[in-house]
């Protein structure tokens, strides 16, 4: 018979049994018993004390996205629980495996509006894969095992465990066994060979097929299989925002990013191809634009592990309900060797227009203020094209996603679905902790940085060597862009009076400097990257810098603005 331990200790033992090494958290009244026991476990379980619970969730997301492992968050009840909601919702939309342990008032006081009581399960059910209240210590091992199984099997997502205080202190015999089966849940469906054969035939018959590589390719670790299918069939590959880095930027068949601020070729050719093979993506409205004018000429094949995505936004002609790697592996032998040079090269003409009209002025300007694109390009290059990109949300996100160079998978961490300003700084901390050997380049704006700026304290405490590049235009730039283009230049509440960011960084013991002109940029980037530790580069950016190309919200995907005055002429 096992010795009896508290529910709190059972939780820690179960976390260890699930292979957890790192917890991002913040203590409080309803979770004190667990933190008390954690005091004895710090040699085995590293706890990162963030400065705000939201930061814990984004840090766990950064860790999960860079490693593929489940991020773990631990916070108290009430306000801490509500503070994690943004991160939980973000993780749900971006399929990020995360287990969030939240303290709860004692079960005898549930429903009495007790101090710091909130209905955690009720609030989080719509934004989690699973939310469960642990009211008895006997349930700890079962619930934790189930939580990790659910969070990181099938389509990953967040799980919330709401842990009552009395269950933390009550005694239990702890027996942990890993969850490998839930009767009502099939995380990874078996390949249906008839579907595979059908899709292979469609690909072989297509003249102008195009593969969309989404986040699911990265989650499945299917980058090699996807490249093999593309190479064998000579099929161009385009990616979603979260699918960036599933194929190296300089691969012959890689043609760029889709979406509102994606590359012209992928967007225009969406409406030129005769077959669209979407892998591990969900036809988000930022990718499709007007769905009634989206790839109407093409047959649509959708490969996804989540069958609820089929026909949700775009009607499909064929589907493969499977893990992306399983599906691509099964497809590969059935794909004919083909030469589709003319089709592959059809992207070149749009790439040339984009280079001349958009990229050169943004990335290689010779006069005027510094531009975001040129800073991103220079940082990416100086980091040997091997860095991990972490972004905040807004112009900094779109421009860094566009101009960062991706050499290996899992090189972009960004808030795609929820578009959470303030995501970046804590996410970069988690990313660096998950991949300490990689250079983490975090691009942010003056708006987003200030939404979670307190996490500079976490960087200070743990010496997390994150490179922070603040693209500072003293504006909420993305909203400003819409105001400039669609709201008659009425800059309602978008100019910002900003603090001295270098002084703030310095106050946290973080090295920092201002860059105001082109001549000093290279040197500053060099100093930042060679500095042993975190660094903040506050770069003064042209306040009128915008991101192009742009497909306005709700417009057909091939209606492309090249800049504020020119539109792409379609032939």
């Amino acid at each position, binding site marked *: 018979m096992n010795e009896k331990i508290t529910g709190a200790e059972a939780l820690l033992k179960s976390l260890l049994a699930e292979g957890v090494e790192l917890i991002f958290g913040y203590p409080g009244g309803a979770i004190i018993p667990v933190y008390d026991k954690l005091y004895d476990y710090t040699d085995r379980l590293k706890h990162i004390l963030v400065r705000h619970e939201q930061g814990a969730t984004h840090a766990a997301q950064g860790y999960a996205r860079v490693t593929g492992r489940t991020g773990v968050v631990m916070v108290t009840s009430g306000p801490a629980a509500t503070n994690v909601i943004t991160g939980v919702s973000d993780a749900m939309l971006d399929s990020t495996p995360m287990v969030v342990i939240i303290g709860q008032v004692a079960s005898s006081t549930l429903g009495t509006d007790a101090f710091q009581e909130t209905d955690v*399960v*009720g609030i989080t*059910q719509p934004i989690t894969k699973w939310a469960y*209240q642990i009211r008895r210590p006997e349930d700890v091992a079962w619930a934790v095992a189930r939580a990790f199984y*659910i969070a990181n099997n099938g389509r990953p997502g967040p799980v919330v465990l709401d842990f009552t205080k009395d269950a933390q202190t009550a005694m239990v015999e702890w027996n942990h066994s890993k969850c*490998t089966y839930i009767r*009502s849940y099939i995380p990874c469906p078996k390949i249906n060979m008839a579907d595979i054969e059908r899709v292979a035939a469609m690909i072989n018959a297509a003249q102008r097929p195009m593969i969309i590589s989404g986040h699911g390719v990265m989650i499945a670790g299917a980058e090699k299989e996807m490249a093999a299918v593309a190479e064998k069939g000579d099929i161009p590959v385009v990616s979603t925002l979260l699918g960036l880095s599933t194929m190296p930027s300089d691969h012959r068949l890689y043609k760029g990013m889709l979406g509102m601020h994606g590359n012209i070729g992928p967007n225009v050719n969406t409406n030129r191809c005769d077959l669209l093979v979407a892998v591990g993506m969900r036809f988000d409205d930022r990718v499709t634009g007007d769905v009634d004018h989206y790839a109407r000429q093409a047959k649509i094949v959708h490969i996804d592990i989540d*069958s*609820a995505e089929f*026909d949700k936004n775009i009607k499909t002609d064929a589907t493969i309900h499977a893990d992306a790697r399983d599906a691509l592996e099964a497809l590969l032998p059935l794909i004919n060797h083909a030469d589709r040079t003319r089709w592959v090269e059809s992207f070149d003409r749009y790439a040339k227009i984009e280079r001349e009209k958009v990229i050169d002025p943004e990335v290689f300007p010779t006069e005027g203020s510094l531009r975001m694109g040129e800073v991103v390009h220079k940082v990416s290059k100086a980091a040997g094209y091997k860095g991990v990109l972490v972004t905040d949300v807004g112009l900094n996100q779109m421009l860094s996603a566009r101009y960062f160079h991706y050499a290996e998978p899992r090189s972009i961490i960004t808030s795609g679905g929820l578009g959470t300003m303030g995501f970046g700084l804590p996410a970069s901390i988690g990313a660096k902790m998950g991949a300490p050997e990689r250079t983490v380049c975090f691009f942010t704006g003056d708006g987003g940085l200030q939404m979670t700026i307190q996490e500079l304290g976490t960087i200070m405490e743990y010496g997390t060597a994150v490179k922070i590049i603040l693209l500072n235009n003293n504006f909420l730039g993305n909203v400003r862009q819409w105001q400039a283009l669609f709201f008659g230049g009425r800059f309602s509440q978008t100019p910002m009076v900003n603090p001295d960011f270098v002084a703030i960084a310095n106050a946290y013991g973080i090295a920092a400097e201002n860059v105001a002109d082109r001549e000093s940029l290279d040197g500053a980037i060099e100093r930042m990257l060679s500095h042993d530790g975190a660094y903040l580069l506050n770069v003064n950016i042209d306040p009128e810098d915008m991101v192009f190309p742009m497909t306005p919200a709700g417009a057909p995907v091939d209606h492309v603005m090249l800049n504020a005055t020119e539109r792409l002429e379609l032939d």
Partner: protein
Amino acid sequence: MDQQLYTVTVFSENQVGLLNQISIIYTRRGVNIESLTVSPSSIEGVHKFTITSWSDRTLMEKIVKQIEKRIDVLKAFLYTDDEIVYQEVALYKVPTLKLLDEEHLEDIIRHHSARILEITREYTVLEKTGHNDETEALFEELKRYGITQFVRSGRVAVTKSTVEYVTLFLEEQARRRAEGLI
């Protein structure tokens, strides 16, 4: 859009909070639940939800997929009325004295196949099972006696199909588990 009454049946494990998980899927998409019944199913430990709502097929198919996506849901199905045998029960509370004044009470009860459940000096409770229009028809008929209370249950339904898909699903899962496929 082809607005019509759809019936969704959901088979789930006996876990806390499933009703909320299912109902918010409707709420989020702006679909009103017309009726909802929760009961045990023919399979031990498996619960059955029967939910009706007015909507169009495209949206209902998405709702069913979202329901089935919940971890503790085994299977969810979408039906139109022609695919199921369904029933509702209605109770009518009517003042007894007024009913006694009625010459055709027997006719009404016979005609509607209604039953009397309880008679007191003050009130009489009638029961009628049937489809919505049938229970509605009796309601119209009894209106003139002054119905003091009326209640209609949610729809209960079984399929006309000869295949029991939930049973097959459970057998398949048991087989996969035995073979170590999961």
